């Protein structure tokens, strides 16, 4: 508890420690090794032999009723999707801190937001939180853990490598009462995902669909200067941090610009109504228009939507975004 000065990686590490996480298995490599180093100093880090082993160990900890967290970056997340799917079916919590770095392949360790569709994919995706500042990290990690344990579903903190490396004076008070789950809850003799009888499988799927309807109601979104906005920027993560600065600057030149930032990427908040009153929406992101497609799909076809996307590990430059928007309004 208290204010600590550190990088996003250290803030995440401290938040996990305060949440009572006792074991985090992983494979340290850039850019996530700094988080592993912090956890090792706290006696919480344990080595795994592969990404798949890390995922299996984390699932095992959850089945054993212990709070844990996987840490992944870039394409690592693919190796964890199997465990995420099994956690949905077992109905045990499973949390992931996923660092967005440039892809495809290894790419580079610089920031990117190319995993949005991956994290939101499938019938039962994890709940995905996206902080837009280092200060928000402890709050959203605690929320991620709380939701994962309340609904017994996987949850992800999707943080781009820019925020992971940014420093700040952050109050870390990420405590959260631990839920009872897995074998510690002692309400089930066994955990399985095998339902060879289609009726049983249908029943289980229907029950999960109902649960995900409840989860949909937990979507979070931040409106920034949207009250009188004529133009809206939609962005998340570090892109939203930059978008707010852009909106501030454009307001100085009498352009009524606001920002709509989804805090949860899955479930995704309903933005249709709020966007009806604006003349144009600008989607700012670091990916091949993944957020753009998501936003476009929610809006009335009459609402004009423009895309500003960067790639390769380059952040959206504040002045470039301002010029882009000015050129279209």
């Amino acid at each position, binding site marked *: 508890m208290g204010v600590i000065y550190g990088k996003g990686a250290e803030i995440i590490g401290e938040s996990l420690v305060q949440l009572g996480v006792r074991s985090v298995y992983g494979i340290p490599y850039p850019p996530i090794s700094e988080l592993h180093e912090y956890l090792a100093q706290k006696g919480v880090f344990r080595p795994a032999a592969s990404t798949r082993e890390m995922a299996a160990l984390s699932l095992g900890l959850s089945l054993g*009723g212990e709070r844990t967290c996987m840490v992944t970056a870039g394409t690592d997340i693919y190796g964890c999707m199997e465990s995420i799917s099994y956690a949905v079916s077992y109905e045990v919590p499973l949390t992931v801190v996923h660092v967005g770095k440039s892809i495809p392949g290894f790419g580079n360790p610089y920031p990117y937001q190319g995993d949005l569709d991956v994290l939101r994919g499938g019938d039962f995706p994890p709940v995905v939180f996206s902080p837009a500042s280092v200060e928000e990290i402890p709050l959203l990690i605690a929320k991620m853990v709380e939701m994962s344990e309340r609904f017994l579903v996987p949850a992800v903190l999707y943080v781009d490598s820019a925020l992971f490396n940014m420093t700040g004076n952050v109050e870390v008070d990420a405590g959260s009462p631990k839920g009872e789950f897995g074998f510690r809850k002692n309400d089930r003799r066994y955990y399985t995902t095998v339902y060879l009888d289609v009726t049983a499988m249908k029943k289980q799927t229907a029950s999960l669909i109902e649960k995900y309807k409840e989860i949909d109601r937990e979507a979070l979104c931040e409106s920034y200067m949207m009250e009188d906005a004529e133009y809206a920027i939609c962005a998340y993560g570090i892109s939203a941090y930059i978008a707010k600065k852009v909106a501030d600057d454009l307001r100085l030149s009498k352009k009524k610009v606001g920002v709509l930032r989804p805090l949860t990427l899955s479930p995704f908040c309903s933005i249709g109504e709020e966007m009806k009153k604006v003349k144009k929406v600008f989607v700012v992101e670091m990916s091949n228009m993944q957020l753009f497609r998501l936003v476009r799909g929610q809006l009335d076809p009459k609402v004009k939507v423009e895309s500003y996307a960067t790639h390769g590990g380059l952040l959206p430059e504040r002045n470039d975004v301002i010029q882009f928007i000015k050129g279209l309004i």
Partner: protein
Amino acid sequence: MEIERKTEKVYGYPGLLTDRKEHFCPGCSHGILSKVIAEIISEMGLHERAIGVYGAGCASIMYEYIGIKGVGAPPGSAVGIAAGIKDAMKDALVFAYVGDADIASDLSVVIGAAMRNDKITVICENNFNMGVSGGAMSPATPLGIATTTSPSGRSAAGQGNPLALSELVKGTKGVTYCARGSSHSPGAVRKTKAMIKKAFMEQIFGNGMGFVEVAGMCPTNLNLPPVEAATKVKEILEELPTGETK
């Protein structure tokens, strides 16, 4: 003169086996091993502390038959899940029950557990093929054995040499007990039972990981009657010595 007859029950249906009918084929070793494991846990009085993690394959729903806590694991992940559960529940007796193809599909989970000296038990039923796939070649299929994916018989030039699982695992320091048993005869089953018991004891005493490979029969996929399948396994074991190796 009336003779007083005293009877003593010396054998019966293991109390820990549920009354659910097993789905295994006639002559399959999984049925034998589910009974052996149930007996051991019962004899050791550990049924309340025991958790079985069953790998993908024919035995992935063995939790239905052994009346202890259980998990049906994702392919290749049973040992990792067992290690995670053990980390969370130090007092539990946690074992992974896996097939030869399942364990070989991701040996990193075994290597990782051995690297950390995780106190778990691994029982690997090696029936020399991928039973649940209808008899595809597994990494442990011996040379010359025909499978659906090596129809002319496995050859070193074609599909490569088989993996010897026990030999592969015993080289790691974290594995403190390693043995290869078999299930092809009642005598072999008795010896295997003793091996599995010792592997559990390694965990209970906190020494390290116990690994027991058990050669098993898969008559359906070997296209042999059960008795001949057992004879075939005995032949295979001439190349793979049984006994405690560590």
